[in-house]
C-alpha cells in the first residue's frame, strides 16, 4: 500500500506504451532533415502543443522540455536573475520552497544577489501583504510554489502574482510540481511568467519535465549547445519522453475533477483518524490545501519508527520530503510554519493519488492508532 505519491508515481501503462512506441518508431534526431527526422520533429512539436493546450497556455506561452522540475527551476531562476541583473539584483522566494528553488536562490545570493525569504503563516502560505512589503524597485525575480510538497499548502498564485505585477517589474515564477495534473490550471490571462513541473508526479516518467514560459520572455539558456528547443535548452531532444509527458498529462487531466473530490474525502477521513490519536497535530490546514497531501506531527514518537512500523505491514508513507529524507532529521517546512523544533522533528507525510482506494485508506486509518500506541508504550 503506497501512500507516497507526492514523492513519485508509477508510470501509467499507456504512458509506457507511448514511450516504447515513440522510442522505437520515432528515434531519429528531430533536427535532421530527412523524413524520419521530420517525423520525430512532428511528434515533438505535437507533444509540445498538447501540453500547452492542456495548460490553457496555447499561443501565449512556450513549452521547453527539460530533464525535470529541478532543471526547470534552475533554468527559470538562474536565467531570469542573470538576464535582468542590470535592472536589479533582488530576489524573493518563500521559506517553504522546494530545495531546487531555495538552493538556487542561495547560490545566486553567494554570487552577489540579495535574497528575501518570505515567511509563511500558520497554514503554510505566503500572505499577500508580506509579499507586497518585500517587493522593491530592484526586485527582478519572485519565485513561489503553487502547492507545497510536504504539507500541501496552496498559495493563491493568481493573487500573489497580481501583486508582483502591480508593485514591480519582476518575473513571477511558480513551481507547480505538486499541482500540474491534479489541479485545474489555465495559464492564459494569469500573471504567471514561468511555470515548472515534472512528469513523474502524474504517472509520467522520471527525468522528464517542462518549463512553461511567457512567449515574450526571451531568457538566455542554462545549457548552451546546438540550439535545440528554440535555443532555450540545447541537447538532442528526447522525443519519447516529451511524448510520454504529453500523454501522461492528458490522461491525468481526463478525470481530474472526479479524482480531486474522491481524494478530498480520503484526506478528510485520514485527518479524522489521525486527530483522534492523542498528541497528534496537523501541519497546515484542511481548508485551502491540496487534498493529495496530509502532514502531521506525532508527539513523542520518532517519525522513522512510524514509517518502519507501517512498512512492516507493507504500508509506505514518508517522513520529510523524499528529496531531503536522507539529510536531516528535521523538516524545514514544518519548522517554518510552526516555529517548533519538536513538531518539525516528528512530522510524517501521507500522500494520495487516483490509484488510492477506499480500502487502502480504511486499512491505514485502522493501523495508525494501535501502532502509535505501541510505539509510545515501548518508549516508557
Amino acid at each position: 500500500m503506497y501512500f507516497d505519491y507526492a514523492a513519485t508515481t508509477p508510470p501509467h501503462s499507456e504512458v509506457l506504451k507511448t514511450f516504447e512506441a515513440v522510442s522505437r518508431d520515432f528515434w531519429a534526431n528531430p533536427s535532421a532533415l530527412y523524413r524520419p527526422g521530420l517525423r520525430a520533429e512532428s511528434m515533438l512539436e505535437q507533444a509540445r502543443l498538447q501540453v500547452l493546450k492542456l495548460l490553457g497556455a496555447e499561443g501565449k506561452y512556450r513549452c521547453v522540455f527539460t530533464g525535470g522540475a529541478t532543471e526547470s527551476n534552475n533554468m527559470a531562476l538562474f536565467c531570469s536573475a542573470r538576464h535582468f541583473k542590470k535592472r536589479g539584483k533582488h530576489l524573493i522566494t518563500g521559506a517553504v520552497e522546494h530545495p531546487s528553488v531555495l538552493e538556487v536562490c542561495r547560490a545566486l545570493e553567494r554570487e552577489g544577489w540579495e535574497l528575501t525569504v518570505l515567511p509563511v503563516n500558520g497554514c503554510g502560505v505566503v500572505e499577500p501583504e508580506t509579499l507586497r512589503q518585500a517587493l522593491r524597485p530592484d526586485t527582478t525575480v519572485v519565485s513561489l510554489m503553487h502547492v507545497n510538497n510536504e504539507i500541501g499548502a496552496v498559495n493563491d498564485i493568481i493573487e500573489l502574482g497580481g501583486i508582483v505585477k502591480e508593485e514591480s517589474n519582476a518575473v513571477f515564477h511558480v513551481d507547480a510540481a505538486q499541482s500540474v495534473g491534479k489541479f485545474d490550471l489555465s495559464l492564459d490571462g494569469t500573471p504567471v511568467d514561468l511555470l515548472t513541473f515534472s512528469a513523474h508526479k502524474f504517472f509520467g516518467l522520471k527525468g522528464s519535465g517542462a518549463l512553461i514560459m511567457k512567449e515574450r520572455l526571451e531568457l538566455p539558456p542554462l545549457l548552451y549547445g546546438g540550439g535545440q528547443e528554440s535555443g532555450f535548452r540545447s541537447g538532442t531532444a528526447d522525443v519519447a519522453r516529451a511524448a510520454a509527458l504529453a500523454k501522461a498529462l492528458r490522461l491525468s487531466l481526463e478525470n481530474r475533477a472526479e479524482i480531486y473530490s474522491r481524494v478530498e474525502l480520503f484526506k478528510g477521513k485520514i485527518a479524522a483518524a489521525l486527530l483522534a490519536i492523542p498528541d497528534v497535530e496537523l501541519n497546515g490546514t484542511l481548508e485551502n490545501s491540496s487534498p493529495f497531501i496530509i502532514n502531521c506531527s506525532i508527539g513523542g514518537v520518532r517519525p522513522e519508527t512510524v514509517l518502519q512500523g507501517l512498512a512492516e505491514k507493507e504500508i509506505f508513507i514518508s517522513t520529510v520530503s523524499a528529496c531531503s529524507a536522507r539529510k536531516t532529521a528535521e523538516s524545514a517546512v514544518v519548522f517554518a510554519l510552526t516555529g517548533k523544533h519538536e513538531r518539525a522533528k516528528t512530522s510524517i507525510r501521507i500522500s494520495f493519488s487516483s490509484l488510492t482506494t477506499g480500502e487502502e485508506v480504511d486499512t491505514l486509518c485502522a493501523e495508525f492508532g494501535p501502532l502509535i500506541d505501541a510505539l509510545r508504550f515501548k518508549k516508557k
Partner: protein
Amino acid sequence: MQYDAILIRLGELFLKGKNKQSFIDRLFQTVKTKLKNFPAVTVEKSNDHFMVFLNGTDYQAALKQLDFVFGIHSYALGKICETELEAICETALPVAIEACRSGVSIKFETKRGWKKFPLNSIEISQQVAAYVGTNAPEGTIRFNVARPDAVVRVFVKKQYSLVVAKVIPASGGLPIGLNGKALLMLSGGLDSPVAGYLLMKRGLEVEGIHFESPPYTTARARQKVYDLAEKMAHYLPKGKIRIHVVPFTNLQKEIFSSVPENYGMTVMRRMMYRISAGIAEQHKIRLLGNGESLGQVASQTPASMWAINAVTDLPVIRPVACMDKVEIVGIARKIGTYDISIRPYEDCCTVFVPKFPVTFPKKEHCDRYEKRFDWEPLVQACIANTEMVEIKAGEPIQLDSETTDEICGLL
C-alpha cells in the same frame, strides 16, 4: 463579470458613400459566420452597429473569433434588461461598480432609441445615477460628470435596454470581400504573412503564391507555408485561403548558370514577378503584395525594386516596407505566425544566395543578361505546372498525414 451582449461598433464605413450598405451587409455575414460555432449566440443588425446576444456563451471566446473580422472598430460589453426604469437601474448598478474598480470615475449617458419611453435621455441618466449613488456600497462608485475616466452608456430600445461600460478596441480595418483580391508572395519568412495580414485588414481577399525548388527546398518548407496560410485563413470571411505553389527549380537553375552571380538574385526576383503576374492574370487578380521591407536585404533598395518591378505593370503593395523589424515581429506574434516563420528551413530565396548581390542593379543589365537564355518557355512552364492548394482555418494540412495519425494515436 458575465456579460449578456456585445455591441459591435463598425469601423471606417462612414468613409463610404452609396455602397455603404453593401459593406455593412458583407460584414454582418462575416460576423455571423465567425460566430456560427456558438449555437446560443444570435446577432442583430442595426444602422450603425451590430448586437451580439451571448445567451450564456463566454464573451471571451466570442471576442477571440470576432478578432478575426476586419471592419469592426470596437466592442462594448454590456448587460441586457427590460425597458423599465427600475430594471435599468438595477442592471446599471453592478456594471457601474465594475467600471469604477481601480479608482476610475464615471458618468452615465443615455441614448433613447425608443422615443415613447416616458423619460428623456437626460432624465434617465439622472435617475440611474441617483439609484446607483444611493445603492452602491460606500466607496465603490466615483462620479465625475465633467471629466469622467469612463462613460457608462444606457441604450433604451423598444424590446430591451442595454447598459455597457467596458469598451475594447477591435481589429479595425475594412470588411474583406468588396475591394477585390491581392496575390501575396509568400516565402515562409517573417514579413510576408504580416504583409498578408495588413492587406486583408484593408479589405482585400488574399491568395498566396509560393515558389519552391525541390530538392533544394524540402517538404518542411512547404509545410511551413501551409501552416502560415492556415493562420491567415482565419481572417478571410469564408475561412479558407488559396495558395499557388510554383515549381521553380528548373528556371532557378537556368538563371544561376546563365547570369553573373551578382545579378542572379535580381533576375530571379524578376522571374518571380513575371510568374506572379501570370498567375494573377489567370485568376483576375489585379494587385501583387509582398513582404519586402526597405533596406533589409539587397533586393530591398529602391534601385533593386525599380529594376525588379519593371517586369510587371501590376501595382505592387509592400505593406511592411516602412516598418521596423520589431513592429513586424509584434504583428507576427499577434497573428500567430512568428513561431512558424522562425522554423529554420531553406526556402527558394536562400538556396542560391550570391556572395555579393548587387544592391544598385541596372535595368539594362538585367535585360541583357536575360537574353543569354530562353526564359520565356520556362516561365510559362512554371505557370502551367503551378499547383493550387486550398487551406481552411482550423484544419491545417499535414503533408505526412500518415505520421500525423500515428502521432495522434500515441499522444
